[in-house]
């Protein structure tokens, strides 16, 4: 397995290197130049991962990522690694492996692919799994399956339905127990609270820059094309080079502002602005160029970032019921504020807030097979959007497995929907 993993990482490194070389030799002025910084970070992260692996450093997988980093674990790709499999032959190869292994075919592909990455030897078998249902139960099941398959120690951090005092104590207590458990089970790791505080600081800064970009994106025409809109970086405290990630975020922000002033990369004519939920079409980047050509600006929401960005409270450092939280309580809050948890109204409120705040004209509600959080929330969500005057279209696609994907059909559906949104928008203008 180690040979296979090393080969996988070496191949990934070569891919990153080729991409960076290509960009340096032939820069595309239509694309954000700061992207290069991100690719260089990803290259160095992969190199560091390989070095850690060769040096026998302990790896952990799962959430909360910040705590795992503060314990001194190295980490592998997670969702990022899973999403990368959508490029090229990965999106069919892993579907074949899934069927062969008897794993649930209709599970969310972004989660189940993680199992295949580990059982297939393309990601290291971690030394520890932190199993947490902060986002969805499939992420718990995949971690649990990997832990059971590899007979690896694991700890379950369970999250309640509501963001309240009971859950704060519940989750924080479990994190405390998890630290004790890890220190007793895994050699070479120890909880470093100062490190956790430092990492939370990076995420706080990330949230600040993200909010600046968020505010900037309210401008019309949209300062960001649909492809770049998909490129939002997840919170970075759990990443290997958080400082560099912040530098990238600042560079991206500054470049966006600068380009906007010069009229570069700005949507020439914004016909409609759409909220796009749940998952992107990772295996077909050309769809985003097509959307841009149709004059469609996209705001992409995955679920948790309304709170991670602190848009609706609950960011690192924010007071809680008038008091400052301890570092572990901060982690607890960041976990249970994830609105994929609890009643659907939390997700409806968060996405509805962004839809209104960003002034979108309609919502593409992605129906990703296996996403139980969103699939059967479609009707209540659509009803809420309709009440807010926003047309909503369900679009059935998967994030990684492209089997059954038909670009022509997707374009046809989107075209019709764009027209509906556009007409509705014009009606509103006329009424106003």
């Amino acid at each position, binding site marked *: 397995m180690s040979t296979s993993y090393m080969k996988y990482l070496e191949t990934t490194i070569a891919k990153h290197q080729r991409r960076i070389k290509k960009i340096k030799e032939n820069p595309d002025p239509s694309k954000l130049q700061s992207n290069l910084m991100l690719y260089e970070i990803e290259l160095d992260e992969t190199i560091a991962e390989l070095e850690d692996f060769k040096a026998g450093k302990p790896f952990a997988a799962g959430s909360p990522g910040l705590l795992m980093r503060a314990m001194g674990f190295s980490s592998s790709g997670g969702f990022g690694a899973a999403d990368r499999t959508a490029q090229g032959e990965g999106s069919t190869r892993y579907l074949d492996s899934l069927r062969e292994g008897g*794993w649930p075919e209709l599970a969310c592909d972004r989660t189940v692919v993680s199992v295949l990455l580990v059982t297939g030897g393309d990601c290291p078998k971690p030394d520890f799994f932190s199993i947490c249902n902060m986002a969805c139960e499939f992420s718990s*099941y995949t971690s*649990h399956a990997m832990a059971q398959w590899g007979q690896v120690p694991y700890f379950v951090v369970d999250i309640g339905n509501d963001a309240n005092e009971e859950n704060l104590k519940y989750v924080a207590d479990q994190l405390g127990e998890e630290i004790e458990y890890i220190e007793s089970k895994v050699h070479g790791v120890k909880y470093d609270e100062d490190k956790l505080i430092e990492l939370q600081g990076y995420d706080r800064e990330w949230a600040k820059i993200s909010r600046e970009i968020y505010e900037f994106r309210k401008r019309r025409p949209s300062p960001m094309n649909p492809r770049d809109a998909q490129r939002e970086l997840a919170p970075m405290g759990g990443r290997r080079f958080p400082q560099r990630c912040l530098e990238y975020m600042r560079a991206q922000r500054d470049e966006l502002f600068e380009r906007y002033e010069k009229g570069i990369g700005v949507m020439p004519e914004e016909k409609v602005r759409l909220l796009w939920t749940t998952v992107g079409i990772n295996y077909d980047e050309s769809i985003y160029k097509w959307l841009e050509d149709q004059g469609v600006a996209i705001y992409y929401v995955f679920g948790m970032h309304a709170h991670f960005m602190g848009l609706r409270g609950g960011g690192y450092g924010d007071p809680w019921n008038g008091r400052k939280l301890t570092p572990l309580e901060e982690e607890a809050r960041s976990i249970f504020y994830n609105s994929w948890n609890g009643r*659907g109204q939390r997700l409806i409120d968060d996405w509805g807030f962004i839809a209104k705040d960003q002034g979108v004209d309609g919502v593409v509600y992605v129906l990703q097979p296996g996403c*139980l959080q969103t699939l*059967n*929330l479609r009707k*209540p969500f659509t009803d809420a959007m309709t009440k807010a005057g926003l047309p909503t279209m369900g679009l059935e696609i998967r994030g990684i497995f492209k089997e059954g994907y038909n670009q022509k059909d997707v374009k046809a559906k989107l075209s019709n929907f764009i027209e509906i949104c556009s007409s509705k928008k014009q009606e509103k203008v006329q009424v106003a």
Partner: protein
Amino acid sequence: MADEEKLQELLSASRRENWAKPAQEWQQKGKKVIGIIDSYVPEEVLYAAGILPIRIMHVSHKYITLAHAYRVVHTDAYYTNVLEALLKKELPFIDGFVFTNRDDDSRRLCDVVDSVVKPPIAHLMHIPRTTTSPAVRRLGEEIVHLGEALNKVWGLNVSDDALRQAAGVYNKNRELMGKLYELRKQDVPPLTGAEFLGLTTAAMVMPKDVFNQKLEPLMGYLEKRQAPIRHRRPRLIVSSDALDSREYIELVETTGALVAMDDLDTGSRYFTLLTDTSATDIKAALASRYLNRPGCPRMMSWDTQIALIIQLIRDYRIDGFVELPLRNSFAREFRTPILMHALEEAQIPAITLKREYEYTNEAQLATRIGGFIEMLGVSASA
């Protein structure tokens, strides 16, 4: 009435044509009925409040005409059928609902029922997925919240004394069922596998004290009774969730086997483990019981669950394991490869065959089960 007649009456209580009767009678007395869809709701709280908790069953529909407006096809079919029944107003004998976060889909079912069906109460309980002490404490808090919700909506109170008494009634039920299940270890058990499912599901729709009063006098008779089985071997264990159609068990048995044990949330997992009624904190004792009973695959304790299944296989002298996962019950589907690997390591023959919620595809299932039975190479007629 002869004992056999009394037994048949009890067994028929959960049949499609009868299962609603206890709830209807309860309602006619001016009392409330709460529908539940999984075995994690601490029913004792409802019972202590004078409410009849009833497991929603037999809601299969040949055609789903309304629920798919709210639920996509590739999700839990049991939940879809429950919603279909509600939208068609087929369950007027249910006044409200207590849901749990058994899985992500059940939370969404709660959302839809709450916003579309609009019952007086659609309460969502958080059931931890682990058994740590914070988890037990957390479920204890959830039990308090359930009591508060019942009080808010219907003005009903749940005292600790009433809760302790309810736990005693439920324990009595579990003890009786446990004794009966012990008899499944015999070569010829007192009931067929299908009859056992009939009995456990009857306990889920009847008031527990009434069920106990009917079952207890029959225990002596059942100890001597020999089930009308056609095959003593192979002895199989069936594992699934939300299985309320005894036809599935009958299918396995008529194909040429004895279902000598089950791993069902409508079977052994429902009643195994008593509540410590002598505990100072009865809510904590209830929480501990519900979290520590044999776990459904949603619990993050697959190693323990698998070890228990293997133990049951040894204790009940089982020849083969038959898993009948409800299609799109994802927790189980994620566990299956791990479970099958463990059974293979333990040299236990096993098969997994996906099923629909409604009883269908019987010919295909019979062929596959028949092939499995043949492969086992053990056969003994009764």
